[in-house]
């Protein structure tokens, strides 16, 4: 395998990292590839892609809250050769190290005056929503970017418990388009349980609905509260539906794959199982299909 292919393979592994385990995955890759110099530059793109995709949480410099690294947070500015990310809450842009996950060089940024009022109203509603339903949630609300008309709402919650071999991540992202009067979004949940095994839950849920007319016509704080009431209801329903899906999987799929006990409700009598075969063999009535007990 040449260097390019090895980098590609390493990047592919990194992007599959379960919540909170990218450093463990990276450590394994270092031993396997055994070429730190090659990796150092080679995996930069993958680390960045991972952080953006997974809504990596960052401590915002000079603020005592966290924000989210994502495509929406990427600052697009002309003549900028460095990549900066935005924390819309403190209105600060910063440089981000995709390996150490540290932010640096904070600079104030002027918010878009046309959108800031509604954006901060959404932010307030989102923070209240977090308080009500997430123990360790982080949110970020972005105004429409140049040439776009939709606000972006993001929520991420992580729980890492390596001592007990599990980790989990909840990601939600919604776009709120006041022109099209529509909300569209997705919720992604990942759980990894790895005590003497490797079990993963991966869910993907997409949703879209029309904004109520009153909300769309008057983007106010009342409107943002209403939007979050709808999102709260939708995510609550989704969480309840997991229970139903689990129940269905347990009752139909799991039981259908393997019974807890045979139809006889007893374990097999192995002496009989063996004896039957032996008897059939001795009497010369060996059938090509073994006895199927139904």
């Amino acid at each position, binding site marked *: 395998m040449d260097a390019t292919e090895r980098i590609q393979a390493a990047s592919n592994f990194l992007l599959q990292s379960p919540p909170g385990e990218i450093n463990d995955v990276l450590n394994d890759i270092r031993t396997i590839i055994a070429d730190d110099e090659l990796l150092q530059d080679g995996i930069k793109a993958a680390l960045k892609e991972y952080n953006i995709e997974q809504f990596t949480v960052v401590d915002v410099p000079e603020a005592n809250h966290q924000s989210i690294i994502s495509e929406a947070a990427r600052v697009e500015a002309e003549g900028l050769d460095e990549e900066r990310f935005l924390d819309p809450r403190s209105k600060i842009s910063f440089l981000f190290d995709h390996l150490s996950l540290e932010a640096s060089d904070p600079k104030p940024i002027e918010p878009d005056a046309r959108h800031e009022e509604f954006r901060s109203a959404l932010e307030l509603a989102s923070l209240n929503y977090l308080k009500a339903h997430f123990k360790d949630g982080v949110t970020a609300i972005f105004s429409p970017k140049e040439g776009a008309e939709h606000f972006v709402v993001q929520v991420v919650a992580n729980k890492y418990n390596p001592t007990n071999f599990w980790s989990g991540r909840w990601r939600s992202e919604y776009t709120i388009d006041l022109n099209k009067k529509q909300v569209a979004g997705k919720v992604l949940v990942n759980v990894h349980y790895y005590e003497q095994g490797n079990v993963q839950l991966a869910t993907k*849920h997409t949703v879209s609905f029309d904004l109520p007319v009153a909300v769309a016509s008057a983007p106010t704080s009342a409107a943002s509260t209403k939007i979050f009431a709808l999102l709260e209801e939708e995510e609550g329903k989704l969480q309840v539906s997991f229970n139903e899906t689990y129940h269905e999987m347990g009752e139909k*799929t799991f039981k259908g794959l393997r019974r807890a006990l045979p139809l006889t409700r007893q374990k097999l009598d192995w002496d009989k199982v063996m004896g039957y075969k032996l008897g059939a063999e001795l009497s010369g009535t060996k059938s090509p299909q073994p006895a199927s007990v139904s």
Partner: protein
Amino acid sequence: MAEVIDSMLDLMRRLPPTRTEENVQALVNICPDEADELLQSVDQPLQVMVDRATGREYLACDYNRDGESYRSPWSNEYDPPLDDGAVPSSKMRKIEIQANEAFDTYREMYYEGGVSSAYLWDPEDPSGGSNFAGVVVIKKTMTPATPLEPSGSWDSIHVFETVERGRQAHYKLTSTIMLQLLTRKSSDNDKPNSTSEKKGPDGLKRDGEVSLSGSMTRQSEQDWPLQDSSSHISNIGRMIEEMEIKMRNLLQEVYFGKTRDVVYDLRSIDDLEKARRQKELQKELVGFIRR
């Protein structure tokens, strides 16, 4: 290099179980020298093959592989054919035939479908007497008729070693079960139950997918009495049956219990803020009464 293989195994314990085959292949390409050890240590989903001689299905895995060919437990033939493929001694083959028939019955009783195979191999050291080893593999797949029906697969791999001690035998069993469950949902398929449920916002559309996948491994060692060579099969059969019952409970607990608990740790359905306020109110009341 022991360290590289350790890192490979750690990596495989972290990456998504749904992509095991692809990731193992990538590791083999990166470190061809470690390929044999990796393939022996990482369990991969079993492949269903059809015996050309008998038409019966059997399972392909690393244990019945010789080069690119797989040996059928029914006809003892390799596919693609091999002139000098490794086969068990005639004594061992006799026990293997019995084992395949016994576990086929076991499979039918518990799985009501699927495919099973048993492969035995002679002791590496000829002076090892009748101490042999083997594997019992079982696979069942549920294929949905439509994309919105749940699907799933179960792969059991039971590797065992036997050591005869007079009229007793000592067995060491290592069992891995790989289980995948997938359910898709779409609002296009929602039955209109107009009155009972509160109507959501206009134009509501939902699509969802829930995938639970993974593998768990457990070991067990036991001594059982020996009457004749077929006692081995019933002894191993009892151990495998007990192990599968134990592991099925464990899988149920982890798949449907633990992963759900983590989701509820991430997000609470109940309003945490309300609960907090309730608590504070209670504290205040307690303080008030004490005064």
